[in-house]
């Protein structure tokens, strides 16, 4: 029944300009990330951007292209849970960086969406390595509440500018204390006060008019933006490392009934049970095991496995943009240190989708958008590569600026002639 409904839905989609063809991916090892688990020698039928059938030896009558995936693995396209893709071309070149502002009037209300650059070279660089989506977030700034992020698709056709805000980002711990005059205690008071004021404002909004002389700790714009957090429409993602700081934030979230997500999370494994009980997910880089500050002394490679064991929902990011795709190496290392492989892949797909409320993406099953990667080997292995990438059913180019440079210099004879490109 659902299938029929989807068919009808797809007919509508055909009316709009969609470049998706129909594909039959044959004979693959599928990492479905559903209760079905891994299926070997299985096929996926993709039509009009959606996964329409999953099973063994599918027979499809309508016109389609076959992608032979014998001895290959298929996963959903990967998503980076925290990045600045599209907001930064060269990190040290200020003019190419848009994910932060030194203006103190923008904190929670700082929305990075208008700045996104869909011609960024970071998009093909990451896409050709199997990353199909990314959460894009603000950084730094002058306030504890740093602003709002969006989810982007790394498609080379019809880049989609999603204006839908998916999270509010903030910081506590060392970074938060630095903003709050040097003390965590002041940072806590400011985080708490802003939520109280935002709550007051949303209940008394009609009494407020421009020019009104209301005294809040933040601008009315910033407080308005926190409404989405108070209404639980979006999570509050807080950067924090120390175990007791995490507990402090769990209590703050309980007090204000908000959806909390912990990012960084060096010492999260020490409070894994508390995080599980409070249903607080964790965005973490499993490869990060250096005690780089006094707030992250207990960091270790076994952390992600221990969090999973306790029932904490994991989401992975290597906190990088240029190489956001290397989240796969981080995930592989989490498996080496005890995390089940399918949990590691979920932390780069469906878990992140669920945390940020991204619909119809993240598993291989009927009705999901066809963000799919065909890997030439184990998707968690450092020597594996993406052979083909589909985003919303559209097969993507596997060319990037780096691959063009490689082609130009692969053979160094007659190098001066290579300036001329057909």
């Amino acid at each position: 029944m659902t299938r029929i409904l989807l068919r009808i839905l797809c007919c509508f989609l055909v009316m709009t300009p969609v470049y998706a063809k129909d594909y039959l991916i044959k004979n693959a090892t599928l990492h479905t990330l559903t209760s079905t688990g891994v299926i070997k020698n299985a096929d996926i039928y993709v039509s009009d951007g959606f996964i329409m059938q999953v099973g063994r030896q599918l027979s499809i009558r309508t016109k389609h292209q076959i992608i032979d995936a014998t001895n290959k693995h298929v996963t959903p396209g990967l998503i980076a849970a925290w990045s600045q893709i599209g907001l930064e071309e060269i990190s040290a070149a200020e003019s190419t960086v848009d994910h932060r502002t030194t203006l103190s009037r923008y904190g929670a209300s700082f929305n990075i969406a208008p700045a996104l650059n869909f011609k960024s070279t970071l998009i093909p660089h990451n896409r050709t390595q199997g990353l199909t989506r990314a959460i894009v977030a603000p950084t730094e700034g002058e306030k504890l509440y740093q602003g709002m992020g969006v989810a982007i698709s790394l498609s080379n056709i019809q880049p989609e500018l999603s204006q839908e805000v998916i999270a509010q980002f903030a910081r506590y711990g060392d970074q938060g204390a630095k903003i709050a005059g040097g003390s965590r205690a002041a940072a806590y008071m400011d985080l708490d006060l802003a939520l109280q004021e935002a709550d007051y404002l949303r209940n008394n909004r009609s009494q407020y008019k421009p020019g009104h002389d209301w005294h809040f700790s933040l601008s009315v714009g910033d407080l308005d933006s926190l409404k989405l957090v108070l209404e639980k429409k979006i999570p509050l993602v807080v950067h924090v490392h120390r175990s007791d700081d995490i507990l402090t934030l769990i209590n703050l979230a309980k007090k204000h009934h908000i959806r909390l997500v912990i990012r960084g999370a060096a010492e999260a494994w020490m409070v894994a049970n508390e995080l599980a009980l409070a249903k607080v997910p964790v965005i973490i880089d499993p490869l990060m095991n250096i005690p780089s500050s006094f707030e992250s002394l207990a960091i270790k490679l076994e952390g992600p496995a221990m969090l999973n064991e306790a029932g904490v929902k994991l989401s992975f990011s290597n906190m990088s943009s240029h190489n956001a795709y290397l989240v796969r190496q981080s995930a592989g290392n989490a498996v080496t240190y005890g995390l089940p492989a399918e949990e590691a892949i979920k932390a780069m797909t469906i878990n992140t989708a669920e945390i940020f409320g991204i619909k119809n993406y993240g598993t291989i099953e009927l009705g999901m958008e066809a963000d799919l990667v065909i890997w030439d080997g184990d998707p968690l292995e450092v020597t594996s590569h993406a052979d083909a990438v589909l985003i919303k059913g559209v097969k993507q180019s596997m060319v990037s600026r780096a691959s063009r440079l490689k082609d130009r210099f692969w053979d160094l004879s007659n190098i001066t002639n290579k300036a001329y490109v057909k």
Partner: protein
Amino acid sequence: MSYIIAFLRTLFVILIVVVLSACDPVPESSTEVASQPFESTYNPPTTSSFLIEHATVLTGKGKQLNDASVLVEKGVIKSVGNNLYAPANVIRYNADGQWVTPGLIDVHSHLGVYPSPAIESSEDGNEMTAPVTAEVWAEHSVWTQDPGMPLALAGGVTTFQVLPGSGNLIGGRGVTLKNVYARSVQGMKFPGAPHSLKMACGENPKRVYGERGQAPSTRMGNVAGYRKVWIRATAYRKKWDDYLAAIGAGQELDEPERDLQLDTLAEVLRGNILVHNHCYRAEEMMIMIDIAKEFDYKISTFHHAIEAYKIADVLAKENICSAMWADWWGFKHEAFDHVRENAAMVNKAGACAIIHSDSDIGIQHLNQEAAKAMAAGNKSGLALQPKDAIAWITSNAAQAIGIAEKTGVIEEGKMADLVIWSGNPFSVYSKTNKVFIDGRLVFDRSDDSKKTVSDFELGILAPEGERR
């Protein structure tokens, strides 16, 4: 002081004899050999002989031996191969299903000079008070209790070169250390390893000094800065060499004034200190090669050589190593032309390829970094094997820092710096099981009593426990 001069005189006479007999026109004298300040005190304890059996051995120099053994006696590799004879009483490690490689070597680390936790008071890697600080030595900044060191050891790194940062045109001397617990940096210094000189091209020095309104503020300013100081160093070297030749010939002369900065540079000109040059762009590397020719010194290695693939043929011809990342790019403009196949392309051209870390995280999985760089080359059509790519983090690295005679390869007579891996080290799933330095078991994953805990980590999380 007269003792030193007497020593120098004797040394110089010996050198002259050697030089004349070899008909070498370059006198290999030194103003420093006599005093040997901050000499290595590393002295590995005598260890029992042992045999690693039934392992897949990557020798570090192009060979993979299956079901092979490695015999170690007195901290030195005695033999490697199939069906080795070993005395009945040696300790035997059954490495069935496991792989053995030389201990990994990182030619670019800031462990100890930018230690963890990163707090301002211990950031000691970059003396950014003048564009040329050849007089500073990284070893004088090393905090031996950096918790990054035991972590690197757990990643199989037995030797690493600590370099000053890249804020200066000439940042100072680097030092090569054995990854062992010690109370002093002298206790970690690799015996007999040459010093290195850290030089830097491009954005960093011109930004640091340009922002202060002083030279250099451009790349051409950088080049003028190197050349000006090499002119002084050449004159200084000549003054000292002439002096030593004169007193060697029996003349009585006043000793020339010593200059700590020029001492180091003169030693580079004499070939006793190896040049490690941070340089991203092809055209800048080509300029640096010409400067080296102008002043008659040798560049050992270009570090962070993002564009090495563009001039791999030249680097092969000039016999200069390239130390590269597998995949870092885009953090600054000079790192924009990265290709994932860089190391593979340098290797393909017959040049010396090295994977380095410049990172306290990367140093812990140099094997994975090499694996990614190898796989990228293979995806573009090459057929690189682990036996080839292991050289990028062992023998080639040893060559770059002047210790290839001593370590970096599993063969008779080399230091027994060895790693036993749970499986193929070019897999994300493989971990180190055991690490040996000079035949001493310094890390054993299955035995907590064989895991280094730095002074810093002792009782830091809980008074009775250790951070690990």
